[in-house]
């Protein structure tokens, strides 16, 4: 026990010593800047420590004092004429300053019982800000995007495109040099996974390594972007955003059939629809002038939320719950705002009132009432996908079953009801009537320009003056590639969110994205063509100490594969992968009894009925998602729960993950099948190991690795030859047919080596 405490203390000591060595020295907030900026220096403090009681929420405001606006901060304090919270350039007269530095705890702000406390650094910032005039500025993310000039660089040799100017400028500021370019093998692995979610094939590796042309890399990037696997990779993120699942959720949790919508998402990415078209179809495909079956199918986006089919629910309560989900999803997915915080009361930090919330809510409130209740696959409104529909109108749907498939979609009923503000957010506590409208603080909703329906809402979203839409999406694509966004809180661009590490870069990329027709493939190409992206991921102790989270990108981050990639990589490298695109979700290997233990015993999802044959080897995005019992491997590797819109996955490390890569039949079967294939080839054991390693880790094996694995193989072969029954048991894994006339001992020994390679840290890391 004592040892553990010691570890904790030691850890703290290490952190502190790093800090002294300058770990945080480069972070601007630690150094009092010459000119204090409201957005970047002051507001984070006020927002975090003061706005709870002196912020936008009128109901929680104390002493009628608000500090989030200059008018509020400069006006006379309640019941006084000559006392002011802030008097610009006058510390003595600024009651705020007196309060935050009060010696008497009764006068101190924030009050002791708030559990909030200002640090001395924070007090210094506020002091300097008042001295310099206490100037307010609008929140950076709510100001229109202004495309900045590229920063001038001291050393311009490194930069390959515009991105690099912004990155290098900061690095020069803090005195770090970028890493060298990664070696070609690792760069190829990285870019292949980032664009397609799959490792490069040995053929592609060979071709790229052998191509010395200046545009060799660009050709590969173009090839990857043109492949159909690009759409699947992009979809894996979008399914999180859209909270896609194959069951309705809640306790009964019955089957639903939304997968044709998923087929559309993959199709839309592969056709490289502009982000504007992609989103407009999903939000308002039933209202667009070119309305057709495809645009209506896309509106399934807003039916992916959970539906409570429990008997005896109060209909209105759950109807409101569903509209709430659509509203919150709209806020988080497209605006990067925590709109949901304004459902029960005015937003405590952001200029979004409860009325704003319900005005936005009104756009999603015009659906017909629920009709065909009960445990059905799809509740109206819906469209039916028949073979004729697939043949004539929606050829991208991979429908193999004979029966028709119903997909839930959105239908507008303009006069179905009026929308009201709900007091405290409670479904039956009806307040004033509201009109469909968006939060004015983001961008006023001009009803001369936009219709007051979801189509108008989409137009508002893609208005060039909308400050958030482009920034939020560009930031998320950056996050998917670099592991963290320029704004790290990719779901919160509001006052409490993280400030951008490179605001100029985000603005430049966002403006560029809009100027170029919201072209998603172009955006991704721009990012992966940068010198920033191509850096090696080697990290020196210096860099680790100075920038442990790699905020400044003086190296590429080493990022673990996500749940889908881990599976897809094993299947692809072993040759098991079934490359089929789209179609219904599949039930792959899963430990027995999981669904049975947790289900109520009713309905078709009470028991897990595993698929067989080629369906076992589909990519991870097609794994069946039953919301109440999520696929265990995915869950353990941080897949989203699909309970609500998620824009950012965690990346954790636990021993339960090690147990999976050690014992999950999918990985073991991949090792077995790969081994069988290699054993059949006419080559030396050394060649086989070299080939397996090169395919799985995606780089040439080093001599010391090869030597070690060779001797490990010899050892295993002799061990298994003494216990052939063990060898037979070991290779008896998975349903893929065994190779004919296989040499049990050799297959087992090589399988052991391959399985070890599958478990290497580097294997499932983009490095």
């Amino acid at each position, binding site marked *: 026990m004592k040892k553990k405490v010691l570890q904790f203390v030691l*850890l703290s000591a290490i952190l502190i010593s790093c800090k002294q060595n300058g770990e945080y020295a480069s972070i601007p907030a630690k150094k009092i800047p010459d000119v204090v900026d409201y957005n970047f220096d002051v507001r984070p403090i006020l927002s975090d420590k003061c706005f709870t009681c002196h912020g936008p929420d009128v109901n929680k405001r104390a002493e009628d004092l608000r500090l989030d606006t200059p008018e509020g901060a400069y006006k006379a304090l309640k019941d006084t004429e000559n006392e002011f919270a802030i008097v610009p350039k006058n510390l003595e007269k600024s009651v705020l300053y007196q309060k935050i530095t009060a010696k008497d705890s009764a006068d101190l702000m924030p009050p002791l019982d708030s559990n909030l406390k200002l640090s001395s650094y924070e007090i210094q910032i506020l002091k300097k800000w008042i001295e310099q005039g206490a100037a307010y500025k609008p929140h950076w993310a709510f100001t229109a995007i202004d495309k900045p000039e590229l920063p001038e660089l001291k050393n311009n040799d490194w930069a390959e495109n515009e991105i690099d100017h912004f990155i290098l400028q900061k690095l020069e500021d803090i005195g770090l040099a970028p890493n060298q370019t990664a070696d070609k093998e690792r760069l190829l692995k990285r870019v292949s996974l980032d664009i397609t979610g799959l490792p490069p094939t040995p053929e592609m590796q060979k071709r790229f390594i052998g191509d010395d042309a200046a545009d060799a890399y660009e050709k590969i990037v173009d090839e990857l972007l043109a492949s159909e696997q690009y759409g699947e990779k992009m979809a894996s993120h979008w399914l999180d955003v859209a909270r896609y699942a194959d069951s309705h959720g809640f306790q009964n949790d019955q089957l639903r059939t939304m997968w044709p919508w998923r087929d559309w998402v993959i199709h839309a990415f592969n056709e490289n629809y502009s982000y504007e078209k992609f989103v407009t179809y999903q939000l308002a495909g039933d209202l667009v002038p070119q309305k057709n079956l495809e645009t209506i199918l896309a509106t399934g986006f807003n039916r992916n939320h959970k539906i409570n089919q429990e008997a005896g*629910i109060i209909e209105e309560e759950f109807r409101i719950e569903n509209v709430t989900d659509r509203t919150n999803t709209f806020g988080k997915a497209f605006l990067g705002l925590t709109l949901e915080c304004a459902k029960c009361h005015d937003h*405590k930090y952001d200029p979004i009132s409860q009325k704003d919330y319900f005005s936005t809510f009104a756009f999603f409130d015009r659906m017909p009432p629920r009709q065909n209740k009960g445990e059905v696959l799809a509740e109206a409104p819906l469209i039916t996908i028949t073979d004729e529909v697939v043949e004539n109108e929606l050829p991208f749907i991979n429908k193999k079953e004979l029966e028709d498939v119903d997909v839930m979609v959105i239908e507008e009923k303009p006069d179905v009801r009026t929308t009201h503000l709900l007091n405290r957010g409670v479904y039956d506590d009806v307040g004033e009537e509201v009109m469909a409208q968006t939060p004015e603080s983001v961008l006023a909703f001009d009803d001369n320009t936009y219709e007051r329906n979801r189509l108008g809402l989409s137009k508002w979203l893609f208005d060039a003056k909308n400050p958030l839409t482009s920034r939020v999406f560009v930031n998320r694509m950056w996050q998917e590639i670099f592991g963290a966004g320029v704004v790290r809180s990719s779901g919160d661009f509001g006052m409490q969110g993280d400030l951008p590490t490179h605001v100029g870069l985000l603005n430049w990329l966002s403006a560029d994205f809009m100027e170029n027709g919201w072209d998603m493939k172009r955006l991704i190409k721009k990012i992966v063509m940068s010198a920033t992206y191509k850096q090696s991921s080697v990290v020196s102790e210096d860099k680790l100490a100075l920038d442990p989270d790699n905020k400044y990108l003086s190296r590429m981050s080493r990022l673990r594969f996500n749940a889908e990639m881990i599976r897809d990589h094993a299947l692809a490298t072993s040759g098991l992968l079934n490359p089929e695109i789209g179609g219904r979700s599949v039930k792959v290997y899963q430990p027995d009894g999981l669904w049975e233990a947790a289900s109520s015993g009713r309905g078709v999802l009470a028991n897990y009925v595993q698929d067989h044959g080629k369906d076992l080897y589909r990519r991870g995005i097609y794994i069946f998602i039953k919301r109440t019992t999520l696929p265990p491997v995915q869950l353990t590797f*941080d897949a989203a729960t699909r309970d609500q819109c998620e824009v950012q996955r*965690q*990346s954790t490390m636990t021993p339960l993950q090690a147990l999976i890569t050690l*014992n999950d039949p999918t990985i073991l079967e991949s090792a077995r099948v790969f081994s069988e294939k290699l054993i059949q080839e006419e080559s030396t054991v050394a060649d086989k190991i070299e080939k397996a390693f090169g395919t799985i880790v995606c780089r040439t094996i080093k001599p010391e690795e090869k030597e070690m694995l060779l001797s490990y193989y010899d050892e295993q072969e002799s061990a298994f030859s003494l216990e052939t029954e063990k060898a037979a*048991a070991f290779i008896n894994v998975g349903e893929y047919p065994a190779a004919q006339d296989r040499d049990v001992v050799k297959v087992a020994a090589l399988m052991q080596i391959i399985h070890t390679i599958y478990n290497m840290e580097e294997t499932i890391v983009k490095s």
Partner: protein
Amino acid sequence: MEKEVFEHHLNANRRHFLGKMALGVGGVALGSLLMPDLLSGKKVAEDQLPLGLKHFAAKAKRIILLVQNGAPSQLESFDYKPKLNDMFGQDLPPSVRGDQKLTGMTAGQKSFPLVGSKFGFKQHGKSGTWVSELFPNIAKITDDICVIKSMHTDAINHDPALTFMQTGAQVGNRPSIGSWFSYGLGSENKNLPAYCVLLSKGKGNGQGVYSKLWSNGFLDSSHQGVQLSASEDPILYLNNPDGMDRKTRRNMLDHLASLNQMGYDEFGDPEIPAKIKQYEMAFRMQTAVPEITDVSKEPDHIKKMYGPDCMVPGTYAANCLLARKMSESGVRFVQLYHQGWDQHSNLVGEMKGQAKDVDMASAALITDLKQRGLLDETLVIWSGEFGRTNYCQGKLTKENYGRDHHPRCFSIFVAGGGVKAGVSYGKTDELGYNIIESPVHIHDLHATIMHLMGLDHEKLTYKHLGRRFRLTDVHGHVVKDLLA
């Protein structure tokens, strides 16, 4: 800032926490296993602890939560209402019902005929606690438990109500109560998860359970509840594949570690040594977990106490015995779910079976802990997600009836861990519909549980999406009257 630093630590951010650990310190457990036990020693400087940790001396160190999933009727268990028998078949007076919303299942009923318990009640123990004849073994330990008859909640449907009980909110991606304790207190055992979940099913009308109930929500997924199953793999993928013995596995891990070490030499990424340790931890779990889940070595008198079911894996009795073993080994939060308590009809028939499933083992668990001297530091909670109506749902006969969901009052019991023993707390009206004395809301129960574990429910927070969240949201009061 300090606070964020500690939230950062508590959430075991890999780079700062494990990374540094792996570089310079070593020997840290991983996963929900991976938080050092912050309470295991007193030497950590006070300002280095998260705010919640320094406020009270903890009475309880561990929790066992016995969720009676589906909502057992309080009127056939602990809340004795003879008046309902007198008023058999009479309509619930509208003045008593007030503005209570009804579920869609009974909202359309023309009448709400009152019905009393078909099962007899008696007072037991020195405390004179009322218990129905369905629970003869719990009746024997009434002087060790505290029955709360004045619980109430906000939701009237299973999923939102159960989610509320588990996370303090009816909807949304909030952390489960066990995850909060994993986050706030860490693990006492470096080879076992801090938060373990066990499921069982009765024969009564069941409602499913769902993994969201033991979800980490926005906390790091290392705080997720780990579900142990009755299968050969008590933790998923725990066992080595066929043909692979422990020695062969050890050999494989040694080779793997050497390969990974070569990677570390090249990249210098502290994630790599952290990953080597992760595999070692997994290797240790492979022996630690089966030792815990093997109940065969328990002495006969213990097996007898829990009842014959305790040797049948996956039963409530077996899970109770497992819960004792895990808790004894330092698992911070053990949670059982027993399904089948949703008696909308045939209550008389179904409730007998359900009670039989849980009565003996629930009582045995408390007695067992007490005999080992562990009850004082282990808080046991026995609870459904809401109560049931005092009127009949569906057809009422002299012999049988059903009861719908009722959020305004229900009964639970708690034991050990610094709670008063031999007490009945709170009162409902003579019709068992409304609380008339000492209401305890779910948020209050959460606040009290946290208090007993030494945490201030207002101070154990986690900042997410710009807001500091807590288990009790912005509510909850510690029920001081329950504290021993």
